[in-house]
């Protein structure tokens, strides 16, 4: 890879590097997650913003390539409050879970859609959008879950009174003491961002995805969770 011109990308993380440079992690459409060094970027008058569609050019022969050019390909978008934290959380998932320089075309589109939607969604709907993003991320990584059948191959009973339990990396088992109701599983399957579950169901979905992500994240929990201020 000698020189790449204007490939669609999002900035997902940045940190200071030497005196005036930045180490920039991008999620690109064609090259997946990639770390570039932006020489002199700290002094730039129009710094690259996260959550903004951009096109980047980069080059280099070593592992750490240099960012040559950035073009903004978007209207201004400023995520604020909770939406900002959810965006940071999604960025950390990408930073932590994707392989370097492995393209994830579909996930890129899903991320783009997620970021576009975030400023327009209400609180609960934005949490729901994040859960659906996690679902897509997990299935792109090969950890998708069968929301239509239980572990025995029987169809999920979508009635509210039917309870299921999640068995790590296997699937759903029907159990009367289970916490996940059939209709919540149906909502996860439908992937409809406009059909937001209620608070209780959202909590169940959160716990389910947390359990699914846990083996992939290992002992180091997601740090962005610390950004949700709580009194305890």
């Amino acid at each position, binding site marked *: 890879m000698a020189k790449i011109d204007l490939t669609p990308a999002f900035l997902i*993380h940045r*940190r200071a590097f030497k*005196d005036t440079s930045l180490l920039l992690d991008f999620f690109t459409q064609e090259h997946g997650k990639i770390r570039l060094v932006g020489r002199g970027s700290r002094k730039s*008058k*129009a*710094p690259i*913003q*996260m*959550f*903004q569609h951009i096109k980047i050019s980069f080059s280099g022969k070593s592992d750490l390539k240099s960012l040559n050019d950035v073009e*903004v390909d978007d*209207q*201004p978008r*400023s995520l*604020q*409050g*909770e939406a*900002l*934290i959810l965006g*940071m959380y999604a960025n*950390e998932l990408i*930073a932590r879970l994707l392989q370097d320089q492995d393209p994830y075309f579909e996930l890129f589109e899903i991320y783009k859609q997620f970021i576009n939607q975030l400023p327009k969604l209400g609180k609960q709907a934005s949490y729901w959008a994040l859960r659906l993003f996690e679902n897509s991320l997990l299935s792109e990584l090969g950890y998708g879950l069968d929301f239509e059948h239980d572990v025995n191959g029987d169809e999920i009973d979508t009635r509210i009174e039917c309870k299921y339990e999640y068995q790590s990396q296997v699937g759903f088992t029907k159990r009367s003491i289970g916490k996940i109701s059939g209709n919540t599983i149906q909502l996860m399957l439908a992937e409809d961002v406009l059909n937001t579950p209620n608070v209780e169901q959202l909590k169940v979905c959160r716990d389910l995805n947390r359990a699914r992500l846990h083996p992939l994240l290992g002992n180091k929990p*997601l*740090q*962005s*969770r*610390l*950004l949700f*201020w709580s*009194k305890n």
Partner: protein
Amino acid sequence: MIESLNKAFCALPGVGKKTAQRFVYHLLERNREGGMNLAKALVDAMEHVKHCSSCRTLSEKDICNICANNNRTNTQLCVVETPTDIHAIEQSHIYKGKYFVLSGYLSPIDGIGASELGLDELEQKLHQQDIEEIILATNATIEGEVTAHYISNMAKQFEVRITRIAHGIPIGGELEYADINTIAHALSGRKDYDL
């Protein structure tokens, strides 16, 4: 000795081997007195400058001059990322309240959380003192915004007005040359025109 001085100068930002060497030869050959002053001042500062126990800025006293100044109001508290931000705000001569320095911004991926920024101290301050307004003057970056959001959530539990510094077109600047995010912020944060 010369070599170790060379290396010592490299601790400064923007100073590499070559520049360090220039410094060393300049001081040794042309300005011994300046060198002695530098050494003395450096030792003094390194030994005696610490963080103000009230606002966490750099200070040689336990309480910095701004915090100790009785002419400044105690009811306004301006939260900034670095001590140099205080210097920048002070130069504007418009703010007469007190400060709180975070020494950074929240960056969980890099392991910088609330306790590293002294936010528990800030919470205690809000609890114990009669603060009416907290001004969030963190940088206009995503990280600064995240930090501001976190602090505002924390401050909500107290009866305090929470404000954020305005972002917009710099004075003397032209719209044509401003970037789109700045223009969007400037427009959405517009205010009534006072005649």
